[in-house]
């Protein structure tokens, strides 16, 4: 605690209360690695809180948050209580976690994580910000294990902004975790293991696969898996790209899809009510980025991932990563979670363990693959295709750095500005495009467009996508209603020392009154004030 006499009362120092809930280990994400980490940590004697946002509210699902659900969920998702039962039924390991003494919080969003470090000493302890549908609260941790999984990569084409276009993780969640998938016939984009496994999952769920569309000339995934897919009578069309999805209107979404050979040639049309983008996944690094952990670009691991000390350790001594959020790799998820728990337990015991060495990287180049898709999609689609659905920003708006439509047409000089004029002044930065075009500024928090905007910027300015700086994540990393996020429990100390700005009374004395007898009057009025 700092000497109170020397602390500016309007500063944040000593203002945050201690968290209302505490655990030795908080695990975010109850997928295979998170559950394994939680069980192992609890068996090792730690108090463990395992948090998972599923079942997410149906309104967030409508914003494709956290996964790309594409509006293809049944009404079953409206019943949260039923969905909690369904999630327990779908994952027997959750029961095992309970039995091991883990406190399991389902339907709880982790919207932020904060600990002291460069630029912040205000936290009384390291803590995650959680919320359910009613309120938000803070939970203090000694060790944090992030097992937040991955998001869906989504790319744009004509008609992608209608119900029925979704991601592989979203489809998996709706079929398995929620049992609430509203589609019947699925066209799958991609042919990596992700796409092949998605096809097998769809067939095994008793649904139909229209075809797999692969932009490259060869199937990208495992030959055995591809043979299994073909064994179901499913065509894998290589060297093709999707041109458009169309529907019958009336809000029902996709009914047909047209694809063409990348090299040119005759188009083909498939009947389908769902288009599943299984082109790639994106490690879910939101919370790690909010914490200020060091990231690196690893195209063999899916893109921007936490820099690791080995298997699970990060630049933040008390933050471990496990599963897909650490980077996409074939490592066994449960073993990964257990390795994180072992390090967490050792740190809690004051006997830190060395992190295991990381296995050799695979040869996969995720960025190159994503870029091939984006290039083909840009070749067959025009500038009018919307990239950012929330803000209605098109590909053409992006490359023209066009001001948003609600500002009216740009002036003559503004119309001359474009991506090239920005690039002439220095390397492109996605956050700068956000500010000027509003792409990535919407309610879905850029889940649907963050990666494709980076791909388009890279291609339009001829730089590798790895060189486009990550558009940063900020809390809350889930869109939360004000009534939920608000600190209804704010302590009196915060309330009574709140100033709208720095609380420097002399700052607001009208210039003409400085040094006059009126100055004292102003200073009196302005002290303790809540001025503009």
């Amino acid at each position, binding site marked *: 605690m700092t000497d109170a006499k020397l602390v500016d009362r309007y500063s944040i120092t000593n203002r945050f209360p201690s968290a209302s809930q505490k655990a030795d280990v908080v695990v975010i994400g109850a997928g295979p690695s998170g559950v394994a980490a939680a069980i192992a940590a609890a068996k090792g004697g730690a108090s463990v809180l395992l948090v998972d946002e599923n079942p997410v509210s149906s309104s967030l699902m409508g914003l494709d948050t956290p996964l790309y659900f594409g509006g293809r969920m049944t009404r079953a998702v409206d019943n949260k209580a039923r969905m909690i039962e369904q999630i327990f039924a779908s994952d027997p390991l959750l029961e095992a976690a309970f039995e091991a003494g883990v406190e399991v919080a389902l339907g709880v969003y982790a919207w932020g994580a904060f600990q002291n*470090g460069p630029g912040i000493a205000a936290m009384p302890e390291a803590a995650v910000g959680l919320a359910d549908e009613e309120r938000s609260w803070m939970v203090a941790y000694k060790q944090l294990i992030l097992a937040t999984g991955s998001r869906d990569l989504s790319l744009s084409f004509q008609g992608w902004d209608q119900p029925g276009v979704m991601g592989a993780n979203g489809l998996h969640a709706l079929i398995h975790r929620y049992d609430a998938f509203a589609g019947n016939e699925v066209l799958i984009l991609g042919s990596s293991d992700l796409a092949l496994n998605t096809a097998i999952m769809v067939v095994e769920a008793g649904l139909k696969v229209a075809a797999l569309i692969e932009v490259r000339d060869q199937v990208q995934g495992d030959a055995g898996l591809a043979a299994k897919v073909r064994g179901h009578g499913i065509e894998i069309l290589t060297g093709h790209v999707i041109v458009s999805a169309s529907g019958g209107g009336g809000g029902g979404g996709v009914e047909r899809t047209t694809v063409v050979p990348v090299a040119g040639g005759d188009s083909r049309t498939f009947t389908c009510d769902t288009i599943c983008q299984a082109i790639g996944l994106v490690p879910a690094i939101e919370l790690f980025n909010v914490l200020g952990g060091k990231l690196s670009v690893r195209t063999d691991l899916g893109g921007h991932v936490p820099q690791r000390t080995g298997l699970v350790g990060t630049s933040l001594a008390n933050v471990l990563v496990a599963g897909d959020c650490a980077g996409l790799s074939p490592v066994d998820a449960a073993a990964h979670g257990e390795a994180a728990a072992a390090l967490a337990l050792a740190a809690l015991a004051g006997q830190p363990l060395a992190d295991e060495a990381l296995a050799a990287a695979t040869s996969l180049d995720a960025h190159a693959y994503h870029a091939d898709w984006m290039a083909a999609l840009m070749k067959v689609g025009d500038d009018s295709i919307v990239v950012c659905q929330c803000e209605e920003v098109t590909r053409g708006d992006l490359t023209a750095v066009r001001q948003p439509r609600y500002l009216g047409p740009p002036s003559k000089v503004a119309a001359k500005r474009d991506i090239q004029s920005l690039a002439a002044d220095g390397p492109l930065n996605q956050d700068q495009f956000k500010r000027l075009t509003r792409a990535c500024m919407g309610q879905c*928090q850029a889940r649907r467009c963050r990666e494709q905007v980076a791909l388009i910027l890279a291609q339009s300015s001829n730089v590798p996508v790895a060189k486009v700086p990550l558009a940063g994540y900020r809390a809350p990393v889930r869109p939360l209603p004000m009534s939920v996020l608000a600190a209804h429990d704010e302590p009196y100390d*915060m309330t009574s020392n709140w100033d709208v700005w720095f609380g420097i009374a002399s700052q*607001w004395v009208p210039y003409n009154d400085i040094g006059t007898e009126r100055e004292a009057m102003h200073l009196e009025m302005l002290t303790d004030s809540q001025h503009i």
Partner: protein
Amino acid sequence: MSTQKGATVIVVGGGVSGLSAAWWLARSGVDVLVLDKGIVGWEASGRNGGGASHFQSPLFAEEQRLWPMMDEMLGYSTEYQRGKLVLATTEGQLKHYRYMAETFCENGSPAHEIDLQEIRERVPMSGDNILGGVHLTIAGQANPQRTVQAYAWALQDLGGRIQQHTPVLRLVSEGGKVIGVETKDAILGCDSVVVAAGPQSAILLAGVGIDLPIASARAEMIVTEPAPMMGIGAVDGNGLYGRQTKRGNLAYGGGPHEWLDVGPMGPSVRPGSPLVRNLTKRLLGLFSKAGTLRVIRSWAGVIENTPDGRPVIDRIDNVTMITMSSVGFGLSPASGHAVRDLVMDGKCSFADLELLKLSRFDGLSPNWRAEKGWLSHAEPV
């Protein structure tokens, strides 16, 4: 290291004050070069509430005169909107807002109290917890991110130059006069220099024997998804500053700051904190019928303050310096004009800036930060 010709005037810092100064200089035909360590407007200039209503400043009249013309003068949109309502949820706030309205009136800007019925009509999202408010009729607000780029592009359109990603390592002096600035690659010569480098200004000026007392801090804001348009952009109060953007988002800040130590390259990180919950609580107090509106982002900016919270706009020999002490965005059209005048004529043509001279801090205690409780408790950024 080679010495190259830089420009007649080099502006160090492509924030809103430096960009506006450079733009005003370019308008007068001066050969001007802006150097920035990163991207223009990347720090506090692009991370603030966008308010343009500063009755306390000697630049107030010029601020209010210029803003309505800025889109046309720059050639690019700033999203400027005029008018502001300030709403109170406590008697204490109401007392202060009334005082503020009176002070506005005394300083030549119409302002008046508004009744609850008018508040309900103009701010449908507000609820029964609002006790009253004031209407500042000529106060205004703009979009900081669009405005900084507008200055930069307008400057380029006039032939001015901007070099991004070019940190100035030191001011180079010879015979007691600054002759250029040193970058990673070269010394760039100039006849005079404008130091508008925010938190880093003190470090640069110290190198030529000028002691600019400033302390830096981090402040935070939140943003919601778009709300129904209120028709008056700036509705704040309840301990917050902020605005409804032309897209409809509510962008608001306020409350406690965190004092920091900022290195010569500027802040490397701008962490957020759970303060987003406290900001949200107040925003919900302001618009209590908008409880379902989602908060989708937050951000933090690092800004500097002088010991009395007032700007330093001053020229010593051929070094002109400007720090707006945490209130720079809205005043930028006028502050750039003032800097242009100081550089070219040695004197501001439209306002008395005598009380904003650096010399007012002569004799300041070297421990002033500690004495005010403004020391950083965090690791440096």
